[in-house]
């Protein structure tokens, strides 16, 4: 066998141009697979990000039924224990506490209903992107207790600008009493999402707790995991661990079932497309290999004529396919890496002329992952060998005289 590998390897290098052409064809296929995988990862990240990174978080813990009812009394149970637990979870990158209450916000000019959210700016700005999409002002930088960051649409409706007074009215937890506080607009954000820009107002959680009478409690713990795929698995024991004592830990997929369904559909569609793409690549491999092998049937005829067994010719051809695969894999992996790496830095600008500024990441960034350089090269290798089996069989079966005569 060793000899055939040597022979195959030399064959590969004998006609450098042919090998190069064939290798490039397979390499481009491999690079495409790597790139498309990275692209799909990028799209997936993009979708997950657009769903979770603006505000939601990849997972949340709150008291049972808080999400459905937004009842101010339903604060997270046993908060200190839960927080201790979260601190020791190695999958959890960070978490942040929030209070949430529906209320009204008024300015001299207008009144609007509002989702009043108390946040811890230090952790919040690492989890949500509100601070990244500030149009004006800052994200609780100045330490003012009465700072308020609100959405651009809401600011417009209230006709307020930075530094202006707004009054928030909410009901206190438990008693249901009216609680009112004056805030000053310190930041205005714009996600370009109507639901967020028109109805969210953020304040420091201490102030919000004071208003709501929560005394250190929180309605919601938003979570960010080290790997964004973590939250995609509803079977993860993490959710059960924190769904105890009246709390429920849910991933964003459960919080946004409609979006999750849409994503599921997207993945099915993409999965099928990936299969098609793979089909095209396999096709390319078949074509390339057949081209480079059938043109050389004379050579195999010679081998057969001098007494090489059919099985040895088969071996040789399979080895050649393998050698070509190895070569292509090296080229393709490099090509795929460079292409993906460059585009992962620059991003793919998909904005057509038909729509301008979006709230989400405006560029599509392919995401490199080490598995791309294992799975696809392995698949290409296996497929190349499998594909090589056919010409190998043909060469093994060929009538030597035909091969010698026809090819001349």
């Amino acid at each position: 066998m060793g000899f055939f590998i040597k022979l195959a390897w030399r064959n590969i290098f004998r006609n450098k141009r042919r090998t190069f052409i064939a290798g490039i064809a397979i390499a481009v296929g491999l690079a495409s697979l790597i790139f498309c995988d990275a692209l799909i990862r990028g799209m997936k990240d993009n979708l997950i990000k657009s769903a979770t990174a603006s505000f939601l978080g990849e997972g949340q813990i709150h008291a049972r039924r808080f999400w459905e009812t937004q009842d101010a009394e339903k604060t997270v149970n046993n908060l200190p224990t839960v927080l201790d637990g979260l601190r020791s979870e190695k999958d959890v990158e960070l978490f942040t506490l929030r209070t949430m209450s529906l209320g009204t916000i008024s300015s001299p000019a207008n009144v609007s209903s509002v989702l009043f959210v108390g946040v811890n700016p230090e952790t919040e700005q690492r989890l949500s992107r509100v601070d990244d999409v500030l149009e004006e002002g800052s994200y609780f930088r100045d330490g003012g207790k009465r700072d308020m960051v609100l959405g651009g649409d809401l600011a417009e409706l209230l006709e307020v600008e930075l530094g202006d007074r707004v009054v928030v009215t909410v009901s206190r937890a438990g008693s249901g009493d009216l609680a009112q506080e004056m805030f000053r607009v310190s930041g205005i954000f714009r996600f370009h999402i109507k639901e967020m820009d028109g109805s969210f107002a953020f304040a420091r959680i201490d102030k919000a707790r004071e208003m709501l009478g929560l005394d250190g409690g929180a309605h919601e713990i938003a979570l960010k995991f080290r790997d964004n795929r973590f939250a995609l698995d509803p079977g993860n024991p993490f959710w059960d661990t924190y769904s105890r004592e009246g709390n429920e830990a849910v991933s964003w997929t459960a919080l946004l079932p409609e979006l999750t369904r849409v994503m599921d559909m997207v993945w099915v569609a993409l999965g099928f497309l990936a299969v098609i793409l793979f089909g095209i690549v396999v096709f390319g491999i078949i074509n390339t290999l057949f081209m480079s092998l059938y043109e050389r049937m004379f050579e195999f005829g010679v081998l057969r004529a001098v007494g090489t067994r059919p099985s040895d010719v088969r071996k040789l051809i399979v080895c050649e396919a393998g050698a070509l695969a190895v070569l292509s894999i090296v080229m393709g992996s490099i090509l795929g890496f460079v292409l993906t790496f460059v585009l992962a830095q620059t991003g793919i600008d998909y904005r057509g002329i038909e729509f301008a500024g979006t709230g989400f990441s405006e560029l599509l960034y392919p995401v490199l992952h080490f598995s791309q350089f294992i799975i696809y090269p392995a698949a290409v290798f296996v497929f190349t060998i499998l594909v090589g089996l056919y010409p190998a069989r043909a060469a093994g079966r060929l009538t030597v005289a035909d091969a010698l005569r026809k090819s001349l």
Partner: protein
Amino acid sequence: MTNHASDLIVTENLRKDYREDDIVVPAVRGVDLVIKEREFTALVGPSGSGKTTLLNIISGLDSPTEGRVWLKGKPISEMKGAELSDFRRDHIGFVFQAYNLIPVLSAEENIEYIMMLQGVPKNERRERVRKILGDVGLQGMGRRMPPKLSGGQQQRVAIARAMVSRPGLILADEPTANLDSETGAALLDIMRELNEKTGMTFLFSTHDRMVMDRADRIITLKDGRVARDEIRAENPIR
């Protein structure tokens, strides 16, 4: 049909038809031949007379439409696959018109290849290669790759390769066709010399007058049939 011990090749009513679409083209139409050991035989005839086909069938590269071939008393036309390959490897050496070297192997390696298939130990292989390179006049050229050799040198390597496994029968299909007459003649001289020295049987096709003259038996084919079978008196072996 009786087989004598010295009958190396025996063919019996050999027929070969090629099919091209619906037309049947008969290439060999009933050839009965006996070639004895140590013969140095030329197969001559115009293009399309069936020389190559006959050689191919004799060597088992092609199968006859009808009839049978015995080689060393073995019905080669009935062998298949690995058995046939091994038989060929062990008993027949080949020299083709051109390009019959494995292009990625050096002259040495080309010669070594068959021994390797036979499982000859490395040291012995080396020794035999060295010796045979000398026999065909290619001392010191063993490391060259085929493209770096002239046509005549390539053919010599091919002969060396054909003979190195001591096959008993060397089949050569127009070995001199791509060579100029002088080189061709020189090649034939080497073959002749080896035939005499080792007692190996040579069967080659040609339409080169000079080559023909060096044979001690000339079988002329015409339209797939043996038109003439002439044994030349001056053959020293007979």
